């Protein structure tokens, strides 16, 4: 029957994509020429925020010039930790203002959060292996580390993200066109206990939800559960731009007014959509998640890039 045909085609397509991911290395994903922004761990946290915003990036590898070693990744989680620390210690503004990047570990320890376990991998390892390693770490990205041939010192070659890998698959694997089963049948949507808030929720509560659940976005719904927007972890960067922490008293709706006008909007889908069209959208746009809604626009779940990648690597 048609359904059986679709089922078999999807299974074969997934296997073919896996073969592709095993046949390529992380090095293959790198453009012929690219730039990599790295920050010295002696830089002030508030300066590093300027650097990220100025370069329109949300993360950067850190370099410890004392040890001449890669010192992990700066991500939005670090700024969320600093905000939580400051919110609990409002008298410590001086310390926060003078905090250097190499002090972020102390902040993690003080507020009792798990450090982001940044795995890394050699650029010449199979892409499939890099994806597996990345799924094990919460940072949703994986640094590619090699060694200087002569001094054996570490080189941060680049950082791969789930988005970059899925885009690479969407651009290079025609088999994605055969992923025609409805995503509601694949068991990959996060539907139970989806964290959500309302426009009037204090933004600090939304930030707490992001941090305590290890998630990167919080859907915003109205009184009837209809989806209105999403508060994303990277929105935090705009909230404390310039090292100003006064806006923590804002509501989520007010904080979202900080978003720049080139924000492309929140992508939604329904359970009947297929991974073929999902991958089509990833190929064409900068989309980092799909919020699943029902016909009335009510929130029913979240489909993250992690969910999609996990299915491609391990599903079926």
């Amino acid at each position: 029957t048609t359904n059986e045909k679709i089922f078999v085609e999807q299974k074969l397509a997934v296997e073919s994509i896996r073969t592709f991911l095993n046949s390529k290395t992380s090095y293959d994903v790198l453009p012929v020429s690219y730039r990599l922004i790295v920050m010295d761990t002696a830089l002030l946290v508030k300066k590093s925020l300027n650097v990220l915003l100025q370069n329109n990036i949300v993360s950067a590898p850190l370099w410890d010039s004392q040890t001449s070693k890669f010192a992990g990744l700066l991500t939005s989680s670090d700024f969320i930790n600093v905000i939580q620390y400051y919110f609990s210690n409002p008298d410590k503004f001086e310390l926060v203002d003078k905090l250097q990047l190499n002090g972020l570990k102390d902040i993690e320890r003080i507020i009792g959060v798990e450090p982001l376990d940044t795995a890394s991998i050699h650029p010449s390892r199979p892409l499939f292996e890099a994806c597996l390693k990345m799924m094990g770490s919460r940072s949703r990205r994986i640094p590619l580390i090699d060694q200087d041939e002569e001094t054996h010192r570490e080189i941060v070659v680049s950082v791969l993200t789930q988005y970059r890998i899925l885009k690479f698959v969407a651009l290079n694997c025609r088999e994605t066109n055969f992923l025609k089963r409805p995503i509601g049948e694949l068991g990959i949507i996060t539907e139970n206990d989806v964290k959500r808030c309302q426009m009037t929720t204090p933004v600090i509560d939304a930030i707490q939800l992001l941090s305590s659940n290890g998630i990167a976005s919080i859907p915003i719904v109205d009184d009837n559960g209809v989806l209105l927007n999403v508060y994303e972890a990277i929105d935090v960067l705009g909230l404390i731009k310039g090292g100003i922490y006064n806006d923590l008293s804002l509501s989520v709706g007010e904080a979202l007014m900080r978003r720049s006008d080139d924000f492309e909007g929140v992508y939604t889908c329904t359970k009947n959509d297929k991974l073929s069209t999902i991958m089509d959208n990833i190929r064409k746009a900068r989309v980092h998640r799909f919020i699943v809604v029902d016909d009335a626009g009510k929130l029913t779940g979240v489909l993250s890039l992690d969910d999609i990648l996990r299915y491609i690597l391990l599903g079926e």
Partner: protein
Amino acid sequence: LATSSIKHNTLCVASIVRYKQKYATQILYAPL
């Protein structure tokens, strides 16, 4: 070596390095 003007007491230097057959512009931001 490429440099950009010092802003907010932050120095930014870069150099373009060949990594195997690809070219990485490695950019380092350091405090002045």
